[in-house]
């Protein structure tokens, strides 16, 4: 529901909002695209950020491919369900049959609920004249924080998060909206690739 509300408040149409939940179906990327657009950034900066956030799903796919063993049209369908939650549910099982079952059930359930919630949230917000009165401009940062928090259970991720926030704020006055995110993505990639493994 929160995605539908935030997306509509950011200025996306009802159809665009629902299209994102059906076609993109990966929460952090969806929130990032509408967040950048809502903050006055270009939709392309938002699209690039969404794609960068989606890169982790490729790694999930690698872990899932041997478990799921899907081919042909099943793989085309399964790919859309490769997200944080389905991966967590599938790899938590010991037996590949249970893994497959957990993956498909979680995927279908979440896909249905996520799209239904998006529609309800978007419809509810559509009728509001000024979403700011309801504090909806404060909703995206809270959503990003809630998505970030489970990834911060160690010192290094926390340090990366703080450094990224500081860099983004420092460059913000000098570049168009949305571009600080791309600068941060570039820097963290360089850091990850160049750093000597311990």
């Amino acid at each position: 529901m929160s995605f539908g509300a935030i997306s509509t408040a950011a200025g996306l149409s009802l159809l665009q909002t629902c299209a994102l939940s059906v076609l993109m179906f990966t929460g952090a990327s969806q929130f990032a695209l509408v967040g950048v657009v809502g903050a006055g950034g270009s939709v392309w900066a938002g699209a690039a950020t969404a794609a960068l956030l989606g890169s982790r799903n490729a790694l999930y796919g690698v872990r899932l491919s041997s478990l799921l063993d899907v081919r042909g049209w099943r793989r085309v369908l399964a790919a859309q369900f490769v997200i944080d939650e389905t991966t967590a549910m599938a790899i938590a099982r010991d037996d590949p049959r249970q893994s497959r079952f957990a993956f498909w059930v979680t995927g279908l359930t979440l896909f249905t609920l996520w799209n239904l919630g998006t529609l309800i949230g978007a419809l509810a917000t559509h009728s509001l004249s000024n979403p700011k009165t309801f504090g909806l401009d404060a909703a995206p940062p809270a959503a990003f924080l809630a998505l970030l928090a489970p990834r911060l259970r160690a010192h290094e991720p926390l340090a990366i998060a703080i450094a990224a926030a500081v860099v983004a704020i420092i460059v913000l006055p000098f570049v168009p909206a949305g571009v600080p995110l791309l600068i941060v993505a570039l820097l963290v990639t360089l850091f990850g690739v160049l750093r000597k493994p311990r």
Partner: protein
Amino acid sequence: MIWAGVLVASAACYGLKLAGLSLPERWLQDPRVQRTVPMIPIALLAALVATQTFSAGRHLVLDVRAAALVVAIVAVVLRAPFLVVVAVAALTAALGRLL
């Protein structure tokens, strides 16, 4: 214009998911890839929190959204569910504007 961004970004996100299931495993098993890719969402989400709280366009601002973020941090530390975190932040901003 928004439609083009929506469709291209959706295609890119789907392509990444499909690539993970389809590409030879060793391509993505490189230690540098395994190390770097999980860092990207951490950095981007943190940058999104910061920029969306403290900016209006290209200006840095301090307004009710900062108070909303503090409340959201408390909610996250207390392990509140996603929707609750978002709702209390929005509520804080709405109340802050009323005062």
